[in-house]
């Protein structure tokens, strides 16, 4: 019934478009084809209107953004796989998404620059050096056994789960004006000096990893894999967190981007887990805030394009076309200027000014003022990016955002922590 309606409406539209086409250009070779609209599911942070506009201009493909929050992306993929054509999902969701059978492996031969994907995503190395693989490292979940497979391949195959859109390395944000000493370790998050002025995020899977970084740095615990803890490790981590909470270590917890910005900008909190764009947001309010590199390294995340199992025909072609365009540089440069890293570095470089590339990627002092893509002033000339060059930042990744095998136990213990 539904199909019939759709077909009939579509054919009517096509007919109408053909008629209109004939009227406007009475040449016999004109073939009227309706524009394709791709429904693009992701978090709002990843949905730049400029990218949609540019894609529409360059490709004639319309992008319709479906904005949801971080937790809603996998939930949508699992419960409503027909409601989108393209998903921009975090790699750490894949161990849940792939077994559900709602995703379709992407044909590597249809991705033009599949050989140029950043090595940190493709094989977990930067400059040939292995980075930390704790948690769900993207290269471990990058390939499928077959297009319809519901398990990952250990070796590179023809079938890719997600093509990277953005990735980055997260660390602690601090207020240098309210802290009178050097912060060099994750252990400072649990330092009693900052009692009542620290915060972590109330997203259990990420919050517990930040806590683990701090506990390991303090020497309390050593983990086999921080991104996939055993029950004992989870229990010990939560017990330590409860102790810190009872001692009044935390001012508040945050669960979304804006809350973290407010906590920091208002001075309620001087040290907390933070996301890179949130640090930028605090700074644009004129409040000093540093995304502090730490000796133990970063907790990294990566996000990428995936296709739903149901996509086919023109839509599928358009999706590949859009992804290839996305990797061709303009979008990569656009994202780079917001502090993210793109899948293909070489093409992004072509679309950036040399001084921009030097600031964002090479750790050099800015030769001129650094502007955001929308023209806002981000940094004045002379500034250096927190954490330095791409190699210094991504090379120092210690672990990746993850979903643990003991997820259910972890969530239960986390709720215990909140209730304590």
């Amino acid at each position, binding site marked *: 019934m539904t199909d019939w309606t759709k077909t009939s409406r579509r054919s009517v539209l096509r007919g109408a478009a053909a008629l209109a086409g004939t009227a406007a250009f009475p040449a016999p070779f004109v073939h009227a084809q309706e524009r394709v609209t791709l429904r693009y599911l992701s978090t709002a942070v990843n949905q730049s209107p400029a990218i949609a506009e540019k894609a529409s201009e360059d490709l004639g493909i319309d992008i319709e953004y479906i904005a949801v929050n971080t*937790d809603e992306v*996998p*939930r949508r993929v*699992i419960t409503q796989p027909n409601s989108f054509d393209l998903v921009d999902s975090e790699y750490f969701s894949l*161990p*849940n*998404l792939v*077994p*559900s059978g709602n995703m379709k492996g992407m044909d590597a031969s249809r991705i033009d620059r599949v050989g140029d994907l950043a090595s940190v995503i493709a094989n977990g190395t930067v400059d040939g050096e292995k980075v930390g693989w704790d948690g769900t490292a993207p290269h471990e979940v990058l390939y499928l056994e077959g297009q319809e497979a519901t398990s990952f391949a250990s070796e590179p195959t023809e079938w890719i789960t997600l093509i990277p859109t953005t990735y980055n390395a997260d660390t602690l944000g601090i207020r240098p004006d309210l802290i009178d000493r050097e912060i060099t370790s994750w252990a400072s998050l649990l330092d009693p000096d900052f009692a*009542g002025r620290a915060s972590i995020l*109330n*997203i*259990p*899977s990420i919050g517990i990893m930040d806590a683990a970084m701090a506990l390991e740095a303090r020497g309390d615990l050593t983990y086999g894999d921080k991104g996939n803890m055993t029950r004992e490790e989870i229990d010990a981590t939560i017990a330590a967190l409860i102790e810190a*909470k009872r001692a009044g270590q*935390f*001012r*508040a*917890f*945050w*669960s979304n981007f804006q809350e973290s910005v*407010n906590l920091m900008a*208002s*001075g*309620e909190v001087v040290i907390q887990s933070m996301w890179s764009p949130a640090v930028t947001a605090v700074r644009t309010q004129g409040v000093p805030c540093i995304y502090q590199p730490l000796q133990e390294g970063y907790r990294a995340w990566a996000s990428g394009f995936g296709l739903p199992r149901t996509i086919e025909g023109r839509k599928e072609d358009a999706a590949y076309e859009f992804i290839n365009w996305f990797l061709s540089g303009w979008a990569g440069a656009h994202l780079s200027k917001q502090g993210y890293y793109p899948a293909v570095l070489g093409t992004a470089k072509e679309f950036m000014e040399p001084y921009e590339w030097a600031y964002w990627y090479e750790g050099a002092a800015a030769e001129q003022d650094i502007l955001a893509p929308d023209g806002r002033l981000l940094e004045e000339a002379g500034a250096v990016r927190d954490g330095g060059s791409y190699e210094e930042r991504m090379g120092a990744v210690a672990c990746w955002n993850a*979903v643990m095998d003991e*997820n*259910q136990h972890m*969530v*239960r213990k*986390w*709720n*215990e922590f*909140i*209730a*304590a």
Partner: protein
Amino acid sequence: MTDATDTNAGVRPVRASAGRRGSGRAGTALAPYLQAAPMALVFLVFFVLPLAATIVVSFWQYTQYSIEPAFTAQNYGDVFYGCLADLPRLCTTFLTYLSTLKFCLIVWVTTLTIGFTVAYFLAFHVHTLKIQVICFLLCTIPFWTSIVIRMISWIPLLGRNGLVNQTLVGMGVIDTPLEELLYSDFAVILALTHLYTLFMVVPIFNSLMRIDRSLIEAARDAGAGGPQTLLHVILPLARPGILIGSIFVVTVVMGDFLTIGIMGGQQIASVGKVIQTQMQFLQFPLAAANAVILLAAVLVGVWALLKLVDIRKEL
């Protein structure tokens, strides 16, 4: 409330007479059912069905990416994980409910005190209807903005560098800012009281307005003082209003997680937040089991309140 009772009263004779006649036209007998049908249908589709689905799903099994039909009490067992084994230490669920009950009780007392006072003033000290209406509208002004905005507007006031702390430090009352103003039990109670007092004012005001003024006069003539009149005449007559207001406040606070989350700095547990976290991790059956238990707890609370006052008789 009054309207509902009146409609019932109007309907009953029709049905009774139709029944008596026995051979009354079908249309007349059906009329009340047809009149009730739209509301019943809305109730069925948007309340009964989702509730039934929640109860059914609470017995299902789940993995990290799927839920499967089953009939298992596992989820209920998980909700009360460690509750018996860990005694006398309280388990997460008991602690969470205890914390929620604590807020319920305190907020009930504060909203009742403030609500009753406001309603009393409106009913007995404001004499013209026009002024009463104006005052009433003034009370509703905060409701013109969203609940989240009303809540968040407390933050710049109560924060470490907020207006209250700045004023107090400026006046020399305190040396260092008070930390407990924000992200604390106090902040949660303040915000909940602010948000829900009107739910008390309205029904109590309604009850107070229906008190026959000659009763108060009679009490005074019989030698009762102000407090005695309040305690022995006005309060008992205001009971239905107090009860309805209490039901509103208790049910809303029991299910609240937004206010407790924002004003408590996410450091205070609430049942709603537990359910939300479980849904984020696709543990729908577990979340459903929690929801069913919360519903049962709220229903028991309402049932207990209804035991105190026979609301049908009093209205």
